């Protein structure tokens, strides 16, 4: 089967991904679909030859697809019309073919995971020279700061790779003594090596005739056999280098299942560990929201969301307290950010992402709401560009919709403060006149980097914020 019946599609262009994935091939078991690509001219450097492979729409009702298997592996050379990946739609499994010649540089969505239609699932480089670039791009895209999205997450930085780099070195030593030798590895050993990204040439074979067995590869990858009852005794060179270094060993509960992190979850984990190096403190503040609620009721019909209202309020308060919008990058200085970009934490099936409302203080409420909807849509379909989730200067996290009255957020590395917003609920409040009244009250709790933000700064910021929320007319101006 080749691509003779391919649906016509938009040619590669500089258009955004969504425009391409929007085409709906009316196909029902007629021919394998082709992967869609777009060229991305994100960096000004020469990377125009790197294409993204997107989740195709295999039927008119398909919204997301699961990667059943990658037929090709990273580094494989693809020619036009070849099957690259098998996608399970709501109807059946389909082989998806490539539209271009090239090299599969990076697999972004691994086997077994799902991606929405139009989301990038892999990167295709045109020449070998660009593979590294593509990978680096994929890697840097998800780079340093807040929880990043799977779409551009570096495959190279996914969990299994961590142990890979290290173990082969000690393990390789004995090989050298033998001088050049032929490497024989069993089919399953090869599969495992690929899966765990172990360089099979550096694994020492202990099987018959010195061949590399699946167990050898697992050892090199730092995987201990599943059935070990005693806590893993640090076995030879291999496991020593495993990530277990920092993690204490826990007693094993029989029957537990181990699910490896997705790339997004791994990024979250990494960022959370990093956050431990920042000295933080927290300040809470009650905010009356009756006026805000009234405003919300008025503008809701115009498409304004509560998230936009809160982001706008925070941004306006930050404008008056630039230090809370600053960040401490080197432990020696304040970095005052030129714009106020409010990142808002969003739970996305099995992950966490922080789409960013840029220049939230400058955009009006309606534009902000529109922008927010767009970002959420993109986040769901894993189409967020890196600058749309890693450029935040202040983060807003709201669990009020679950009825949470107050909570404590972890400060994402690279930012000065994060605000945790609880539910707004009718609360008896004692007024200055000594009378009780019932007012809608919301508890906010800000976590900040004490190297740059001090208690008084935060308190002043919160006071301003509360004032803006309690007299929200300025929000609509």
């Amino acid at each position: 089967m080749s691509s003779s019946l391919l649906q016509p599609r938009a040619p590669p262009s500089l258009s955004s991904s969504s425009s391409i994935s929007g085409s709906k091939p009316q196909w029902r078991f007629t021919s394998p679909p082709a992967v869609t690509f777009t060229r991305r001219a994100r960096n000004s450097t020469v990377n125009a030859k790197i294409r993204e492979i997107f989740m195709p729409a295999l039927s008119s009702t398909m919204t997301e697809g699961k990667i059943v298997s990658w037929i090709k592996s990273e580094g494989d050379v693809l020619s036009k019309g070849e099957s690259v990946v098998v996608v399970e739609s709501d109807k059946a499994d389909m082989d998806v073919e490539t539209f271009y010649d090239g090299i599969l540089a990076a697999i972004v969505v691994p086997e077994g995971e799902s991606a929405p239609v139009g989301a990038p699932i892999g990167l295709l480089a045109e020449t070998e020279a660009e593979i590294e670039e593509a990978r680096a791009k994929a890697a840097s895209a998800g780079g340093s700061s807040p929880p990043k999205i799977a779409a551009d997450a570096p495959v190279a930085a996914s969990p299994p790779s961590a142990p890979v780099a290290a173990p082969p070195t000690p393990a390789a030593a004995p090989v050298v003594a033998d001088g050049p030798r032929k490497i024989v590895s069993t089919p399953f050993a090869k599969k495992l090596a690929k899966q765990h990204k172990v360089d099979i040439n550096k694994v020492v074979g202990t099987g018959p005739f010195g061949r590399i067995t699946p167990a050898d590869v697992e050892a090199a990858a730092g995987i201990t056999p599943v059935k070990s009852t005693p806590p893993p005794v640090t076995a030879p060179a291999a496991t020593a280098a495993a990530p277990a270094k920092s993690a204490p060993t826990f007693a094993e509960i029989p029957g537990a299942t181990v699910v490896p992190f997705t790339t997004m979850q791994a990024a979250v984990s990494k960022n959370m560990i990093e956050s431990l190096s920042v000295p933080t403190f927290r300040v809470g503040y009650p905010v009356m929201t009756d006026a805000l609620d009234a405003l919300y009721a008025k503008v809701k019909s115009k498409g304004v969301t509560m998230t936009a209202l809160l982001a706008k309020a925070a941004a306006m308060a930050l404008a008056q307290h630039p230090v809370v919008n600053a960040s401490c990058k080197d432990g020696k200085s304040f970095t005052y950010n030129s714009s106020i970009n409010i990142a808002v934490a969003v739970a996305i099936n099995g992950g966490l992402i922080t789409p960013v409302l840029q220049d939230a203080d400058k955009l009006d409420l309606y534009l902000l709401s529109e922008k927010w909807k767009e970002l959420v849509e993109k986040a769901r379909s894993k189409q967020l560009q890196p600058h749309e989730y890693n450029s935040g200067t202040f983060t807003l996290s709201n669990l009020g919709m679950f009825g949470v009255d107050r909570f404590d957020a972890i400060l994402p590395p690279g930012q000065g403060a994060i605000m945790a917003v609880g539910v707004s609920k009718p609360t008896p409040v004692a007024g200055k006149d000594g009378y009780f009244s019932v007012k809608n009250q919301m508890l906010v709790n800000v976590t900040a980097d004490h190297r740059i933000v001090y208690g008084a700064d935060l308190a002043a910021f919160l006071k301003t914020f509360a004032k803006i929320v309690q007299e929200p007319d300025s929000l609509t101006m």
Partner: protein
Amino acid sequence: MQSLISTSPIFAPNRRSFESYASPTALPSSPTPFSLRFCGLRREVLRLSQLKHRVIGTTSKKTRFNVSSASPDGNGSPPTTFDYDLVIIGAGVGGHGAALHAVEKGLKTAIIEGDVIGGTCVNRGCVPSKALLAVSGRMRELQDEHHMKALGLQVSGAGYNRQAVADHASNLASKIRNNLINSLKALGVDILTGFGSILGPQKVKYGLDNLITAKDIIIATGSVPFVPKGIEVDGKTVVTSDHALKLEFVPEWIAIVGSGYIGLEFSDVYTALGSEVTFIEALDQLMPGFDPEIGKLAQRVLINPRKIDYHTGVFATKITPAKDGKPVIIELTDAKTKEPKETLEVDAALIATGRAPFTKGLGLENINVETQRGFVPVDERMRVMDAKGNTVPHLYCIGDANGKLMLAHAASAQGISVVEQLTGKDHVLNHLSVPAACFTHPEISMVGLTEPQAKEKAKKEKFKISVAKTSFKANTKALAENEGEGLAKLIYRPDTGEILGVHILGMHAADLIHEASNAIALGTRVQDIKFAVHAHPTLSEVLDELFKSAHVNVDEHKPVAV
């Protein structure tokens, strides 16, 4: 009882070419013996050089024939009275099927067998392999914790006893063999023991010097595993299907040369029993004989998730058995450039490169018949053709020996077709209606043309084809079994509703195909069969849905209420 033995497209250009492995060295001048693949089963029926007697019949019978066969003399002239109406050389599934039908038609029939009754299929092919595959299917299921858990079952470590598994296979073979012998005896078919050969028109010799005459003769001598040159078979670490079916050992790592039916089925068995498998395929893709779409899915389901890797586009030009403390060494050569590629070191190698006809020593030269790469040339009525292209009167050849379609049930069907002709009814077997199946887990089955073949035919004959597909994912029974993996595919003519081919991969595909093969054989069209009712919930609804999803542009027959 019989399932597929083997197939050969060489002499059947319109047939699917299941067989793909070809050794460049074995038959340098010929366009590669694609024919030779399948159910690994040796046949020694007629090896005169090797005059071994294996007594199967009773002594008394033997004596009787010695007497009766004394009449004719002079090899050139046909006798006028005959010992038998029909003599069949070879008691495999083809010969057996022909004999049964001949008796039913009132013919006095004898069957000559130089080895064991049942031939390849029963002794060294379909039958014992199904026993092993039954084991592998269960092992696979029990080992699949995920699958078990999904059904709410808990099973602790599944294991097996190699010898017991092997015994199951050999017991099944002997049981089926005895059934076969008993059925022949019960019907009064004379079983003559010894290698048979043709002395002249209507004259057959069997054993050392027993001569008999027959009004008609059917050659049904079958085939043996084909071993390309350069491969040394020691029966222990380098084996053919003949040896492998005895399951004398389960290697940790086995290379399977050839990825047709035999190779695929054995990979299913070996991986279920814990082996790792490396396929060596001469063509550029695995399972080249299958409909490409089915092949792709098969690769995804039967190859990729298992402990299997493969080398395609290479010949195994030299295979040395394990000895002197060394593993089995396989030298690979690029199929196109003929340059040496790499060397594999494995624990065992299974040669599944197809099957070669067993026709040597048949005495065909006595009647001026020349085999073509070992196959006996026949016309569409299985009449043997001589060197000049004329049919040889009263001589027929069925089954693997003619290479038309190397499947056990095809041989049997050809035999029945011949008997029909002998008893006054012209009959031509429609080979396109003969189904084939591969008993992996899940199974693969097919009948008729593949999509590329259908396209080619459509182009030549200027008609259009359409393809309909259904998934097992949508089938209640399949989902209940947690076996939703699978696809059924129908290739048909939208203008007439004629069914050109059906291909199934999925649970019990081998049993499901018959609705389609019967439809093709009887000329039932899509617009008619779609009204047939299927019990719910059954796997057969996969085909029901398949037929219903086809769109035919002729006026459909409206069912008439009565």
